[in-house]
């Protein structure tokens, strides 16, 4: 696992890596408008990390994916989601404070990107948590697999 795969795979990965991440961000961003959302988009982004891990191996990545940083970001995503839920506590927990307020994301056009109140923000929080969470699970699994291979 540490050495990576053939040059064909690595070259294709260089091309598709950014595309997959952009597509994942697109799914997260339009979560309140189209099928998908934070979880699905986050999983798509994490699949790009998985591809990089398989193609280049942990050694080839040279620590570009820092597990401790990813885990901290995962907690930040979870706390951001919870914080948005707490923000509505003036009325009720999870109350959508931004919806129909006229400010950012408070647009009244239901098909616009800047609508939905706190929903897009929650999608971003979930997306951050899922992409970093799955990525750190993958890294741990790769480390475990390498240990087993060397034993």
């Amino acid at each position: 696992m540490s050495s990576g795969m053939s040059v064909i795979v690595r070259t294709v990965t260089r091309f598709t890596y950014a595309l997959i991440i952009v597509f994942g961000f697109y799914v997260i961003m339009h979560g309140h408008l189209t099928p998908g959302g934070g979880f699905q988009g986050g999983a798509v982004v994490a699949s790009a990390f998985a591809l990089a891990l398989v193609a280049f191996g942990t050694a080839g990545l040279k620590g570009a994916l820092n597990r401790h940083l990813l885990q901290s970001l995962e907690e930040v995503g979870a706390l951001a989601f919870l914080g948005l839920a707490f923000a509505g506590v003036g009325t009720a927990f999870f109350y959508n404070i931004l919806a129909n307020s006229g400010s950012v994301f408070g647009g009244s056009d239901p098909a616009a990107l800047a609508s939905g109140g706190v929903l897009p923000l929650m999608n971003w929080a979930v997306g951050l948590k899922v992409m970093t969470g799955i990525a750190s699970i993958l890294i741990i699994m790769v480390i475990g697999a390498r240990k087993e291979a060397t034993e």
Partner: protein
Amino acid sequence: MNALLHHAPVLLVAVPLLGAFAVPLVGKLGSGLRRFFVGLIALLTTAIAGYLAASFYAAGASPIVYVLGGRLSLPSGMVAPIRIMFELDGLSVFMMLITALAALAAVLYTSSFWKERSGATLKDSLMLLLIVGIFGMEMTGDLFNFFVFLEITSIAACSLVGFRVWNGRSQEAAFKVMTLYTLSGLFVLLAVGLLYGQYGGLNIAYLATMIGSGAALVDKIALGLLLTGLAMKAGAVPMHMWAPDAYGEAPGAASILLVANSQASLYGLFRVLFTLYGSAYSPQSLAWILIGLAVLTIIVGVTMALVQRDLKRLIAFGAVSQIGYMMLAVGVGFAAMTALQPSDFGFVALQGGLFHMINDAACIGLLFLAAGIVIRRAGTRDLQGMGGIAHDLKWTTAFFMLGAFALAGMPPLNGFASKLMIYESTFRLSPVLAIVAILASILLLAVFLRAFQAAFLGPRTEPTDVMRPVPISMLVSMGLLALVVVAFGLFPGFFVDRIVTPAAQALWSGRDAYIQAVMSGMGG
């Protein structure tokens, strides 16, 4: 109604959840700060639970409904309750108090137990997550969210069981627990799906109004799936096999949370039997299924405890047998309630069964916590290799003895009070059941005398400095539970009147109030 009280039900879930996610970040700043933070979260949660319970009982114990994300009714005027909501009646608040007690004791105990081990951050996070799941199961008014919280407890619980990753036995136990919890969760989900397909709703109160008298076949199948799935998670024989593995391998503080988790599943079972179906579908055969499982649980639990050599497995089988007492009492209550002429002894049985739940949480918790110290001290879990612990650990010895006597129903401790109510009400339904329960209780005393004799009495084995002196926070944690044991034992009438009777009332006659609390708010 002030804002804190209004939001208290959701804060009980949100505060530990916040803690669970923030612990890894706080843990990076230092282990002392992390332990302070976790203790603060646990204290805050317990304080909210206590405040909520106090004002709930002061207001006459009428059900509270909390709707997440806005008002109960929808702008479109739809009459089915589709929002996520918490609904608390006497039983939910009672269970919430048990969980708060167990959570506080577990967090206090664990703060020094794992000081020198790695992975303590993860353990704190998982324990808070387990507390979140248990609170959620007990408060939710929505069948699908009940499943979600059930899964949260399953995941957190099996991670805690398999926490000692360096130990093959705990990995095996975690695998078994994970498989069985998932299985029970999937059957519960199947039942929820059947009910949703039939009635188009997930709210417990709404479904209860839709299940008319003379349940359809699909209702019966859903009931069977819910009953078996939840009974397995509660640890009823013959589906109890996971319990000794789980309780035995989990760290000491996690064991008490697993007990609270089993009781939350039992709560779900009672909620389904009495509220979701209740008077709509309550054949006598259902009560006898419950009683049959209970008698098996009592007998097999106690007799298997007698032959265990592993101290934690011995206590675990004792815990299994106590689940049987609760199921027996509630089964008797159910039989009396649904008989052609309801008799008052059923209400006493419900009181006894529910009172036994909080007593069991305190006694079994005390035993598990004391056993954790004993095992660290002796360096083994095998009773054959122990002896003479009482020479050095005086408080631990006293707490273990108190827990054992209370659990076996020695007067004047709390276990006697609740078991007396169970015996005398069960006797009115069938003397044989009462005799079985009493004999099993005597046998349980023998079981714990054996454990006590083997571990605590006798000459010192290898005297080491491990766990000496026992950390203060552990003694405080056990002292808290011991205080509950003694207080509930000396003043049973006081506590039964205040907290147990509203809970029993919620089962006995609270179905309409539970439904009305949600349904009357609709359409406005």
